[in-house]
């Protein structure tokens, strides 16, 4: 039984390493910063990701040439965005978008150069958890039960040949 538990401990550690790596990737490349937080940041060249809905009636500029100005809304917070990049396909009013760029505190404008899709990473994590957790739990308990049955059969010596029955049927 010890080897059985050691093997599962190894699998558990491997899973935790995997979860850590996925969390790191999410934090570094997908996580968005709330609009309120961005507005309080000092000037920086490091690109950040912000998510919000394009405010109705605010979208201006020439989308075909990749230039646009609009207001991004998230609850009570608003952020002015100047987009300058590749012509965006999915940019329209009332659509929730992710904009990647730098905050300019002097002009109080977010200079975006790239547009991303809403990550929906919670759905991805849920799907993987639903796929793997029940299977792992079931395999663990099935494997454990097999080991216990082996032990039971061994201890009660049920594998030994049975003594012939001496019951007189006549």
């Amino acid at each position, binding site marked *: 039984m010890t080897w059985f538990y050691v093997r599962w401990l190894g*699998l558990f550690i*491997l899973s935790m390493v*995997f979860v850590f*790596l*996925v969390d790191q*990737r999410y934090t570094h490349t*997908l996580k968005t910063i709330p609009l309120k937080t961005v507005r309080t940041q000092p000037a920086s060249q490091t690109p950040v990701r912000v998510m919000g809905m394009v405010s109705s009636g605010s979208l201006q500029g020439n989308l075909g040439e990749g230039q646009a100005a609009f207001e991004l809304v998230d609850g009570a917070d608003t952020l002015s965005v100047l987009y300058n990049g590749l012509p965006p396909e999915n940019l329209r009013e009332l659509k929730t978008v992710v904009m990647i760029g730098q905050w300019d505190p002097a002009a109080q404008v977010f200079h975006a150069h790239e547009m*991303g*899709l*809403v*990550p*929906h*990473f919670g*759905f*991805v994590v*849920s*799907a*993987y958890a*639903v*796929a*793997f957790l*029940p*299977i792992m739990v*079931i*395999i663990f308990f*099935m*494997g454990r*039960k*097999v080991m216990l*049955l*082996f032990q*039971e*059969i061994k201890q009660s010596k*049920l594998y030994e040949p*049975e*003594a012939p*029955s*001496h*019951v*007189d049927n006549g």
Partner: protein
Amino acid sequence: MQRFKGWFGGGAVLCLVAGGYTGLLTSPPDYYQGEIVRIMYVHVPLAHTALFSYSVLFGGSLWYLWKHEPFIDNMCHAAAGISALFTLLALITGSIWAKPTWNTWWTWDPRLVSFAVLLLILGGYLMLRTFLIDDPEKEGRYAAVVAIVGFIDLPIVHFSVEWWRTLHQPQSISSRGVAISDDLLLPLTLMSIGFTLLFVYMLIIRTQLLYLTSLLHAKKGRLLSQVHLSQAGS
């Protein structure tokens, strides 16, 4: 088969780790779906494995009706339980994928409905084996017939996206070719192999579990009856 159990388990872990790594960490997001496409790497392999495991159940049931080997009956019983699990998980992960892409958890689409019917068939099969019949031989025979009749749902599941106008996307890998980029194909293939190996590994353990349980019951029953008969004789 029993002695290769570790190889199947080890192979499954290797493929799933490699597939999970490429799927979650290195493969690019889809142009239209973005990050959500990563659900495909678990949903599609789970669905494939569910269909594969039902095919094993179907083949085993035919074999059992022909040869009447108790080992095959045990294997079919084991395959049905695992197939039900994979079918359920494929439906749940599909539902999770549907919410951000179709904006609904469930829709009465032919592919979804035929897959849900497969789960009902497996549920019926397992209920028949658990509650309805006491005679093991009769139970095995009736269950095999149910599994063979239920197999009619598999072609319906497979071809539903071609026979009817459906919301579900058609097969990305079919006889017409591969309609998916290599970056996405690698994790999908690794995960599919991983889940198939995992199914075989689970099938071996569960068959063993059912065999040992029945062996223990039979032995204990015989020992008890011997004690009972010897007491009655004395």
